[in-house]
C-alpha cells in the first residue's frame, strides 16, 4: 500500500512538472503568435499578400488557373494610377494539392514567418485548409480560399475552429448539392443516376451529398470512383448500365471530363447525360454537347471577365475566378487597414477588415459580404448550365 501511495504521489508530481514544463514551453509560442498578429507592419508603397495554390503536382492545372486569376487582379490593381502608392505584391507558395497536405503546411509556415505578408489567398483544397489552419492562426493571418468547399470548415468545431481567420469566396458543398439533386429529380425527372467521384475531398463531399438526397427521393444510384490522374475510363464506362439516365461527375479537371465524355460516346453510351459541378465549369475545355453543369452565376459581361477571356485565347478558366475575388478582398482589406493605421497596420487589423468586406458587385455575379463563420452572406445560389454544340455554357436553371 505504501508503495502504491509513493508511486501515486510520484506520478502526480511528474504530471505537475510536465504540465509546468509544457505550459512554459507553450507560453512563448502563444506570445509569439500574438506578437505576429499584432506586430506593426509599415505598409509602404508595395504591400505583400501570399497565395497558396497547387502550382505543381496532379492538381496543378486548376492551381495555375487560380494563380492566373489572382495575378490578373493584382496586375489590374497595380496598373491603376490611383493605386501607384499602394501596389500589391503576390508571393506564391506551392501546396501540391493531391500529393501531401504537408506541402500546404510548409507554405503556411513560410507565410507566417514572412513579416511583410499581411493576408493570404488560398489554400485550394479543404484538406489543406484543415492542415494549415494552425500555422495561419499562429501567424495571425487571414486566409481566403477560392475553392475549399467542405461544409464543416466553417462550423467552428468539426474540423477545428478557424473563425476570424478563414473565409471563402466560393459557396460550399451544402449549397451546391441540393441545387444539383433538385434539378435532376424535378426538372430532368431522372430515376437512375450513376455517380463517380474523383477521390478528392471536394468531389467525394459533393457526391455523398447528392447521392443521399437522390436516394431519399427514391432515385436508384450507383457509385464508382476514379483517380484524378486517370485517363483510361473504359472499365468504369463498361460498368455503367445503358439504362441509366445520367452520370454525376463532381470533378475538378475539365480535360478529364472531356476525355471521359469522349470515351463514353466511343463506347456507344452517348444517350447517358453527364452532369458536372463548378469544378468543371470550363467552356471550351469540357465541351460534350448536352451535358449539364452547376456553377455560380458569374457575370460574363463584366469587363474584367471579358479581358481575362480575351487574354487567354477564349478560355475563361472560370474555376479560378473566386481566387480573383479572394485577391480582391485581401487587397481591399490591406488597403483599408493601412489607411486606418496611417501607413502602418497589423495582420489582426487586416483580418478585421476582411470581415468588413462589402463588395456591392463582384465577378461571381453577386455581392460579397462575409458572415462571422467565414461563409459569404449569400444570395449565392448555384446556376445550372447546359453545354451547347459550340462548346459554350448556357444557363438553363
Amino acid at each position, binding site marked *: 500500500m505504501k508503495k502504491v501511495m509513493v508511486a501515486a504521489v510520484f506520478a502526480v508530481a511528474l504530471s505537475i512538472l510536465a504540465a509546468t514544463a509544457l505550459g512554459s514551453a507553450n507560453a512563448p509560442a502563444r506570445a509569439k503568435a500574438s506578437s505576429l498578429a499584432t506586430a506593426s507592419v509599415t505598409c509602404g508603397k508595395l504591400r505583400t499578400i501570399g497565395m497558396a495554390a497547387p*502550382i*505543381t*503536382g*496532379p492538381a*496543378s*492545372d486548376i*492551381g*495555375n488557373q487560380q494563380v492566373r486569376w489572382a495575378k490578373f487582379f493584382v496586375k489590374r490593381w497595380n496598373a491603376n494610377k490611383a493605386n501607384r502608392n499602394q501596389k500589391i505584391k503576390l508571393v506564391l507558395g506551392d501546396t501540391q494539392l493531391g500529393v501531401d497536405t504537408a506541402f500546404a503546411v510548409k507554405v503556411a509556415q513560410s507565410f507566417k514567418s514572412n513579416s511583410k505578408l499581411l493576408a493570404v489567398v488560398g489554400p485550394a483544397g479543404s484538406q489543406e485548409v484543415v492542415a494549415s489552419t494552425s500555422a495561419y492562426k499562429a501567424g495571425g493571418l487571414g486566409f481566403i480560399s477560392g475553392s475549399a468547399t467542405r461544409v464543416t470548415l466553417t462550423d467552428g468545431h468539426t474540423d477545428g475552429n478557424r473563425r476570424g481567420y478563414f473565409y471563402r469566396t466560393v459557396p460550399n458543398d451544402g449549397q451546391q448539392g441540393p441545387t444539383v439533386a433538385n434539378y435532376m429529380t424535378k426538372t430532368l425527372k431522372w430515376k437512375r443516376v450513376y455517380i463517380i467521384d474523383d*477521390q478528392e475531398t471536394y468531389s467525394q463531399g459533393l457526391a455523398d451529398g447528392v447521392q443521399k438526397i437522390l436516394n431519399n427521393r427514391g432515385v436508384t444510384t450507383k457509385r*464508382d*470512383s*476514379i*483517380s484524378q*490522374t*486517370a*485517363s*483510361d475510363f*473504359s*472499365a*468504369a464506362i*463498361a*460498368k455503367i448500365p*445503358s439504362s441509366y439516365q445520367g452520370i454525376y461527375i463532381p470533378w475538378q*479537371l475539365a*480535360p*478529364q471530363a*472531356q*476525355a471521359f465524355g*469522349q*470515351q463514353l*460516346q*466511343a*463506347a*456507344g453510351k452517348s444517350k447517358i447525360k453527364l452532369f458536372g459541378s463548378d469544378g468543371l465549369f470550363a467552356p471550351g*475545355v469540357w465541351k460534350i454537347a448536352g451535358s449539364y453543369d452547376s456553377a455560380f452565376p458569374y457575370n460574363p459581361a463584366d469587363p474584367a471577365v471579358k479581358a481575362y477571356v480575351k487574354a487567354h485565347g477564349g478560355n475563361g478558366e472560370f474555376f479560378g475566378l473566386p481566387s480573383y475575388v479572394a485577391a480582391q478582398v485581401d487587397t481591399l482589406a490591406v488597403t483599408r487597414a493601412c489607411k486606418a493605421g496611417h501607413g502602418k497596420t497589423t495582420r489582426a487589423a487586416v483580418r478585421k477588415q476582411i470581415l468588413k468586406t462589402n463588395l456591392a458587385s463582384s465577378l461571381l455575379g453577386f455581392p460579397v459580404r462575409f458572415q462571422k463563420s467565414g461563409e459569404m452572406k449569400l444570395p449565392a445560389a448555384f446556376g445550372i448550365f447546359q453545354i451547347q454544340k459550340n462548346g459554350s455554357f448556357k444557363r438553363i436553371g
Partner: protein
Amino acid sequence: MISTPRQALGNLAGLGVLLLIWVVYAVYFSPTQGWTFFLQLTVDGIILGSIYALIALGYSMVYGILKLLNFAHGDVYMIGAFIGFGVLTLFGGPLNPAIPVALLVLCMFVVAMLGSGFLGLAIERFAYRPLRDAPRIAPLISALGVAFFLENSVLLLLGANYRNYDGYDLISYNGIHLGGSAGVFVSYLGVMVIVGALLLMVGLIALVRWTQFGKAMRAVSFDREAAAMMGIDPDRVIAITFFVGSALGGAAGVMFGLVYSQIYYLVGFLAGLKGFTAAVVGGIGSIPGAMLGGLLVGLVESWAKGYLNGNVADLVVFGILIGVMLIRPSGLLGTPALKKV
C-alpha cells in the same frame, strides 16, 4: 536473353491456369457476371496493355544492354505525347485538320518517334555515358535526375495545363460491334492502337533477330568487352538502342494521347511505373517478356477497374508485381541470374 523454352513453357502454363481460373470466376461467379462484360474489359485491357508493352520495351532494351533502369523513360514517353500533340495542333487540330487525317496521324507518329528517339540519344550521351564505369547506383540517380529535369522543363516551358488530343474527333467515334449492338465494342482507334503496337513489336523483333545491328546488340548485351574485341562499337550500339527504345516510347505517347485524350507534364510518371512493372513481370531484358508483361498489366488493370473499383486497380497491379517478384524474381520469361561458384 530469355529463359530456356522449357522454363518459359512452364511459366506460361502456370499463367494460363491462373487466367483460366480467373475467367471462370469472372464470368460465372462474380457479382457482375457474363461474357460480354468480361470480353469488353478484356478488349479495353488489350488496348491499354499494347501501350504499356511499347513502354516496357524501352525499359527492357536498355536494361538488357546496359543493366540500367532508365527511370527517365516514362518522361520520354510524355514528351513523345507532347510532340504528337504539337504536330496535331500545327496542322489545324482534331476538328479542322489541314491535311488528310491518315497523313496527319502518320506525321504525328513519325515526328514523335524521331523526337523521342533523339531525346533518348541525348540522355544517353550526356547523362549515362559519362557514368558507364561508375558504380551502378550513379546512373540510377542520374536517371531519376533526368526524369525530374524533363518533367519540370515541360512544366516551365508548356505550363501545367492539360492538353486534349480529342482523338475520337480526329479519327472516328465508330468501331466494330462484336455480337450485336449490345455486344463488345472496339473503336477503330482501339483497333489502330493494337495493330500499330503489334507492327512496331514485330518490327523490333525483326530488327533484333535478323539484322546486323540486332546481332551486335545481342553481342553487347551478352558481353560488352568481348563484343568490342570482335570489332563492335558498344557506344554506337548502346546509342542506337536508346534511340529505338525511346522512339517506341514516343509512339506509345501518341497512341495514349489519341485514345485517352488528356496529357500533361506528369502523364509519364505512372505510365512509366506501369511500363517498368510490365518489363519486370515479363522478365526485364527480355523483349517477348516486355510484350507479355505489358499485355498482362493492361488486362489486370482493366479487370481490376471493372470487377473491383478504380481505387484498387493500381493496388492490384503493383501487388502482382510483388507476387511475381516473390515467386519468380527474374520474371515470367526472364533468365535467372547465374551464380559463379
